[in-house]
């Protein structure tokens, strides 16, 4: 009696089926091959529907995962801008219809959701992204589908895609002015502390090149993994190096641990100031004002900026989300990005990507941070650099300003010392 129903015969039939499947796969029609070097132009036809009373736009921020705490604030200010624009009659008379997607703090998800927003929801433009990894993941999607992304966060530069508008600072609008400020203050040596990912590593590459040209000594360069919270070793190295200032590109939770350890080691803003480029109003509360009071930051916007536009923005934001919510640079850049897109569309009198891009050059907008101008060539915007000091009230107060908007220069082509960086 056979206990098992399998037999060589059964096995053979199963393999025949598998083989048949493979044959179907193998014989299925194949598409175009890539010819050497030829540009694979976008084959996608835009499906954006502008025939009705509404036009769809996409917001793609991480609403879950480690970045949610930061990106939720950007999402909120985008929603605020959309609400204001709709209350004011929309864009070209059409109401904005928001499609929100969660990037889940993962580059792969950002790429997937971007593709969904463009091809399934047919949005006219997408606003969002935070980490460089998320932007790098979305870039090929927007280029191959020929759609538009507005990216609202300061970043490491060395990029300019025809399908992305960068409304945060590039390096010559944040890091270089911060270094200029330190030189002006008489700093002769720097210690670099950063999280181990693209932005800090690239920023520090630029800082090293700057330092070499300006006679500043880099006395140490230390990286901690993202989310790392044990800084006793690094802080000990900082203390024994005794630099004139510390340049901090740490991101997220690590800052809490770093500044606590920094104070525990008996150092303060007076004897060795820390200049941070990733700590905004939102993070000051998380780190604890008492741990970070008096330290410096480099941004293009603070809640304390004194202008009628900013007063209106801060009031509107607090009315919408509560008195205790601060406004910060990335939030302001996101808010501004929606208004810039509106201005581009209205100038072009069209929602089509090519028309919007063609109309982009020279668009100005009186943003909460001050006047910004779109550079049609590299798709960044001219912004005023502000060095701020963290006050006892938890807000950041402008200590130094470039007064004028600085022209964006993502590849640092206008700086001799930056030759060979890109």
């Amino acid at each position, binding site marked *: 009696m056979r*206990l098992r129903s399998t037999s060589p015969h059964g096995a053979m039939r*199963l393999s025949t089926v598998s083989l048949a499947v493979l044959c179907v796969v193998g014989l299925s029609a194949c*598409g175009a091959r890539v010819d*050497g070097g030829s540009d694979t132009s976008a084959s996608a036809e835009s499906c954006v529907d502008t025939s009705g009373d509404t036009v769809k736009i996409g917001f793609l921020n991480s609403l879950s995962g480690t970045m949610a705490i930061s990106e939720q604030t950007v999402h909120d200010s985008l929603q605020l801008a959309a609400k204001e624009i709709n209350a004011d009659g929309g864009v070209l008379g059409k109401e904005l219809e928001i499609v929100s997607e969660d990037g889940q703090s993962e580059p*792969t998800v950002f790429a997937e959701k971007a*593709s969904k927003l463009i091809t*399934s929801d047919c949005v006219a433009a997408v606003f969002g992204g935070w980490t460089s990894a998320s932007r*790098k993941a979305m*870039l090929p999607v927007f280029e191959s589908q020929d759609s538009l992304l507005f990216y609202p966060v300061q970043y490491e530069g060395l990029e300019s895609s025809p399908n992305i508008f960068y409304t945060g600072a590039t390096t010559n609008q944040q890091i270089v002015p911060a270094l200029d400020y330190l030189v002006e203050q008489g700093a002769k040596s720097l210690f670099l502390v950063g999280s181990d990912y693209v932005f800090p590593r*690239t920023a520090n590459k630029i800082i090293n090149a700057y330092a070499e040209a300006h006679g500043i000594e880099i006395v140490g360069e230390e990286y901690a993994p993202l989310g790392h919270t044990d800084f006793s070793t690094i802080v000990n190295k900082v203390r024994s190096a005794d630099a004139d200032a510390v340049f901090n590109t740490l991101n997220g939770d690590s800052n809490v641990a770093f500044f606590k350890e920094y104070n525990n080691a008996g150092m303060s803003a007076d004897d060795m100031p820390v200049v941070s480029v990733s700590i905004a109003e939102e993070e000051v509360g998380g780190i604890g004002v008492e741990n970070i009071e008096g330290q410096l930051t480099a941004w293009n916007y603070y809640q304390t900026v004194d202008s009628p536009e900013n007063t209106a923005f801060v009031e509107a934001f607090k009315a919408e989300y509560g008195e205790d919510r601060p406004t910060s640079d990335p939030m302001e850049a996101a808010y501004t990005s929606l208004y810039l897109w509106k201005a581009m569309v209205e100038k072009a009198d069209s929602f089509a990507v090519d028309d919007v891009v063609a109309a982009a050059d020279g668009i100005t907008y009186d943003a909460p941070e001050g006047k910004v101008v779109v550079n049609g060539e590299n798709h960044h915007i001219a912004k005023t650099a502000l060095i701020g000091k963290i006050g006892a009230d938890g807000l950041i107060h402008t200590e130094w300003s470039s007064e004028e908007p600085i022209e964006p220069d993502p590849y640092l082509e206008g700086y001799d010392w930056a030759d060979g960086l890109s």
Partner: protein
Amino acid sequence: MNVFTALLRPGRARTLAAFGLAAAVLLLAPMVLSPFRLDLLAKFLCLAMVAVGIGLAWGRGGLLTLGQGVYFGLGAYLMAMHLKLADAGPGGVPDFMLLYGTGQVPGWWEPLRSPVSAIVLILLVPAGLAALLGWAVFTRRVRGAYFAILSQALAAAFAILLIGQQQTTGGTNGLNGFRAFFGYDLADPLNKQMLYLIAAGALLVMVAVVRQLSVSRFGELLVAVRDQEDRVRFLGYDPAAVKVVAYAVAAVMAAVGGALFVPIAGIVSPADVGVVPSIGFLIGVAIGGRATLLGPVLGSIAVSWAQTSISEQFPSGWIYFQGALFILVIAFLPGGLASFAGKLRRRRAAAAPGDAGASGDAARDHELVPERSPA
């Protein structure tokens, strides 16, 4: 042995029918789904390949592997490196190395220039690593939670290693922006369809392989090792060898899934290979039913699909749904959703014992070896 039990044994006709049905559904999908949805399904099929392997190693072999992200990642990164080099052309340097690296292609990337050696490496490297690691671990009789922790630590270490080597692995950015897959333009929708069909074909072959392994002598041994390792040893078999084979087969399946994931998703980053995705692979398998043939596949595809569609509907609250589903299944259906059909049938069979053989529930086929079945 009466006629009823013989009929209840895995019937090859019914297995073939279910297999044919699955193949038909997969082959018809391109006609029904939009290009974006088809792309998503192709991605889910790649993740399901990892699940098939876990079904074999964990469901049948009892090897709770919390680190399949390593093998998925090895396959994915090896493929991504090949695609990057192919895009750069003969002697060319991938774009990100010019930005963040030295502008030179490191020596260990070079073997991946040729498509043939890339494919061979995608199969051999994960198999070799799994065999080596498996041999070291299983011959020392490390098992249960200790093996699970070890495999998870491996996934964590792998992700940290990738992040730290930004010049040569792209760091947190990972590798993306591929233009072509073995010469075929990835922007062409027809080629995307071809990729989907390759993924569907590979998945079907893997399911067939697991089914053949399960009903073979090796499959019986594997289940025996899971349930009574010592007894198997006393009978003169080497349990370590059996486990190593199952672990290596699962690793290769994960690697092939990873290798196909890369051209389909267009990106691989450390966030796809670390601890969290490694556990994510397991969720689908557990929900579907780990000890069944089709449970892991269907569970994995269902979980991926639910995750995507729920997150599209509720961008800020979808993660709670996933958690709730997992808790519900573990609490009420520890055998997974596939065991639900079995439970129902057993109840029916108990009500009408004479009718059991003819009830013809297709799910029965796939419940080849329920865990802790009486020896």
